[in-house]
């Protein structure tokens, strides 16, 4: 999943970027509103994290401009002001949730995961497809009740496919969603990760959860069992 982070405080931006990458996200980090607007309109962003106190334009303005430009991805607001009037204003401008500074990274990750899942149409924190369960709040994966150890990146690939279970996700799209603009793109890497996921989730080749469609991409083949909103 590809995140846009707009935060002017360098230290915070860098540590957040590092922590988000560690959690398996591709991150485009912007230091001001106009850069953030450029990234938000030019890159295939899945979710934006926007600080409200930006130097060149108020975060609220950035959010409304992104919404006016037709960008529908979820927006999580970071704010140092904890008065409700500010939260309401941000949510009215088009944000979907907020985190008040100072925050724990776990809190930000939980909100980001919930927003991504919700944007994909899943109402519950746990995505269930047959025996495979992906818990977005714990970022844990179980197959038939047995936890499977995945790396952050493997988790993101699986999440990306499961969120859109039943739909075809092209390799290019996966690359876009999993790598930020600095990464040298190599589609072989995706194939490697898909291979590893298959081995970890389905060591005996019984479920065949991930289908390869030649020239088109991949599809998570197990049906959703949790309710869709």
């Amino acid at each position: 999943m590809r995140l846009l982070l707009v935060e002017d405080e360098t230290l915070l931006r860098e540590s957040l970027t590092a922590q988000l990458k560690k959690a398996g996200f591709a991150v485009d980090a912007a230091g001001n509103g106009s850069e953030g607007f450029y990234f938000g309109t030019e890159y295939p962003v899945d979710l934006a994290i926007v600080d409200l106190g930006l130097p060149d334009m108020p975060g609220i303005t950035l959010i409304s401009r992104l919404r006016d430009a037709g960008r529908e991805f979820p927006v999580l607001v970071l704010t140092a002001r904890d008065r409700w009037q500010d939260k309401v204003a941000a949510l009215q401008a088009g944000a979907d949730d907020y985190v008040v500074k100072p925050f724990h990274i776990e809190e930000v990750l939980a909100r980001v995961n919930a927003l991504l899942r919700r944007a994909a149409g899943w109402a519950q924190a746990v995505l269930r497809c047959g025996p495979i369960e992906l818990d977005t709040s714990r970022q844990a994966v179980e197959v038939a009740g047995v936890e499977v150890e995945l790396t952050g990146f493997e988790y993101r690939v699986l999440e990306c496919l499961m969120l859109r279970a039943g739909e075809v996700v092209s390799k290019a799209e996966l690359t876009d969603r999993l790598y930020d603009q600095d990464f040298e793109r190599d589609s072989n890497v995706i194939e490697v990760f898909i291979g590893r996921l298959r081995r970890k989730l389905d060591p005996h080749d019984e479920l065949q959860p991930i289908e390869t469609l030649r020239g088109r991409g991949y599809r998570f083949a197990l049906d959703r069992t949790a309710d869709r909103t």
Partner: protein
Amino acid sequence: MPSSLSARLLLSVSLVLALFFGLTVVALDRLFREAGERAMQSVLEVHLIALLAAAEGDGSRGLRMPAQLPEERFSQPGSGLYGQIRDASGEIVWRSASSAGAQLAEGPVLAPGDREVVRLAMLDDIPVMALALGIEWEFADGSMRRFEFDVAQSLDLYHAQVERFRRQLFIWFLGLMLLLLTSLALLLRWILRPLRRIETEIAAVEAGSRAELGGGYPSELTGVTENMNALIRDERARLLRYRNTLGNLAHSLKTPLAVMRSALQAGQPDLAAFDTQIARMDAIVGSQLRRAATSAGTTLGHAPVAVAAVIEELRGALDKVYADKQPRCLTETDGNAVYYGDREDLTDLIGNLLDNAYKWSRSTVRITAQAEEMGRRRRGLRLAVEDDGPGIRPADAQRVLARGARVDEQAEGHGIGLAVVKEIVELAGGSLTLGVSPLGGARIELSIPPR
């Protein structure tokens, strides 16, 4: 426009006075001239009758005047009084010595009994007023003959009188106007003195040599000075509050800082302990700033905030945040429910209560707001927020309601939001009750008096 009040008043009064005096002068002048002309006309009549009385008929059916006339000025050349008699054919029968050959009246002779007044005629370039009378003279032999008697008087004297009258009128009015304006200016100084006093007293307050404006102002100004004093006191209280806040803030932040530094120096920083201290510092900053910024307790007026609108706004926001859970939010608001205070305070109040309710509810939240009669001029506000969650733990409730409990001492759960609510309610002089809702969860009820 001049910027000073007195200059404005003096200028406008002078304009009005000038207009008024000008009209009066014109009217008086006119009256004076009319009276003068009437007086002159009657003098002319007297002279004409004297001439008539002096004239004698002679044997040749002519008229003769005695050499010595009763009015001497007829005999003095250039005296300004002239007389003449013409017969029916217009021939001059007699002419006074004073006229020195000048012809008084020409043209057709007036019929007997006719009179004519000429207000302004020229006689050898001298402006005169003339009176003519046509008569029929009966001679001793019983025969009748028509004559015309003319008298005229120079207007020089009259004009000089009018001139003098006008000059005097002008001088008097000018003097009066100056007197009026001067006394007006003095009066203004006296009337406006309290304003100047306010000015100097405000300057003194600014300079710090006075605490507030003094008393003894005229009744029209006491409203202003009292409000000004309230504002000054308010400003002082606010300053004091800010100062206390900063003091408290510095003081209470030093403890967690000291804890962290000593942990660092001990060489074995425990990251979890650091996190606790950071959370503590965050809560302290939030609480102290809220105390300083909240407008509760100030004398400045606030437009009433419609509670229903604030609830609507917050519901929209919270429905978004709790989109996964989507609890049902039942709203029962009385359209009259208003809050006399800062909108942000009210939003914080309801925001914290609703946020807790959304967080802990299983499926339903209810908020009730109504105006409440509290025996004051304006009605207060009663708010209740309920949910169907697990309710508030008695230990939490006790902590929140404990006297002097501070937000930074609060635990998780309903605690922190509720402590913020309690702070705002206390600053507004209201009360907070915790209870159990018929829905099954917590019920938090607030009552806030109007200001």
